[in-house]
Structure formats: C-alpha cells, structure tokens
C-alpha cells in the first residue's frame, strides 16, 4: 500500500536561517507531488506542485523553493527564513491516473 512520510513534525527556526523539509512517498511510481501551507486558522494555500522529476511549478512568489531530486521525493527549501514563513506545511501526493489527493501528517514551522 502507498504511504507518505513527512518530517520533521515540528520545527522552530530563527529568522534568517535556512530550511529543508522533506517528503517521500512509498508504494507508487510517478506521483504528482504537492506542497501546501496553512496559516493558523486558515485554509490551505498551494505553494508548489510537481508532475515529474525536476519539474516544479510555483504558485506563489515567495521566499521558498522546491525540488524533486527523485521520483518519490519532494523537498521544500529556503535560504533565509522570514517571520511570515511560519505555518503548517503539508505534503500531498496523487497517483498518476487517480484523482484522489492524500496528505502527509504535516510540519508545524515556527520562525522566531
């Protein structure tokens, strides 16, 4: 069966520090991969999505970037975090040919 792993669960980082969040999917090939962010008490904002290795689409111009070095690995990065980068980051995947979206357990990022 397919599973999605996202880590870490919580992260506290100082302003100006770098960021790397990792997401991996098991049990499937060539998934569509997504990064969403959720501010406290708000909805989900699509940040990046990828339909294949090295193919990244950015939805919101910001301080973040994404990479997909392997088929089932999706990484969210920042060179210098801002206070406004705080939030709940969720990775999601969708199997090729399947319309359903499945989410990881999320990373709560606090930038202080």
């Amino acid at each position, binding site marked *: 069966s397919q599973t999605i792993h996202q880590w870490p669960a919580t992260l506290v980082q100082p302003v100006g520090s770098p960021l790397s969040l990792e997401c991996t999917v098991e049990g499937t090939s060539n998934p*569509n991969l*997504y990064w*969403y962010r959720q501010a406290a008490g*708000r*909805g*989900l*904002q*699509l940040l990046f*999505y990828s*339909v294949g290795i090295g193919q990244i*689409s950015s*939805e919101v111009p910001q301080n973040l970037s994404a990479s997909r070095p392997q088929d089932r690995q999706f990484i969210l990065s920042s060179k210098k975090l801002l206070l406004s980068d705080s939030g*709940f980051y*969720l990775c*999601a995947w*969708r199997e090729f040919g399947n*319309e*359903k*979206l*499945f*989410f990881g*357990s*999320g990373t*709560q990022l606090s930038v202080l």
Partner: protein
Amino acid sequence: GIQVEQSPPDLILQEGANSTLRCNFSDSVNNLQWFHQNPWGQLINLFYIPSGTKQNGRLSATTVATERYSLLYISSSQTTDSGVYFCAVESPSGTYKYIFGTGTRLKVLA
C-alpha cells in the same frame, strides 16, 4: 483563477444533530474532493465526488457540477466529527492543481 467558497465558516452543533456544509466554485471543475482536518492537523479524504451523490455511513455528499456547488451532509453528528471540513477542486485545464476552499470549522458538543 478559480475561486472556492465554503459556508458556513463556523458551525456549532449539539451531538446528534444534522448539518449541511456547502462548497461553491466559480468555474467548471474536473474533480472535487471533501476533506476532514482533525484537531491534530491530519487531512482525511472523505469523498471524491466530481458529480452525483455518494454516501459513507453518516456522511453523504452531492455535487451539482452544472450549478457549481457541492454539499456535504453530516447526520447524527458525534464529537469526533469536530474539526475543519474543506472542499478542493481541480480546474479542467489539466493543470493537476487542487485549489482548496475556505473551510467550515465544526464543533460538536457532547
């Protein structure tokens, strides 16, 4: 881009009550899903329903694509139903993007 609005934004129910949550979208969509986000942040896929009606236990959903709305029905609500309910739509342009609605925060009181 496509806009997705949900109503009501907040809902408080007594255990055992029924409720209807609504999702309106501004353009034609390929796919529509309903999710429940529990108090720990986990998003659970409830229904994949681009059109028609589906039922799963106490939950059911109806999408009328031609009129650009979807409804989620919760019957005999339980405290475990508390959380935030989101609908998400994929535009028909083949972009593979799922856009989320504004959410309905539900609290069920014992």
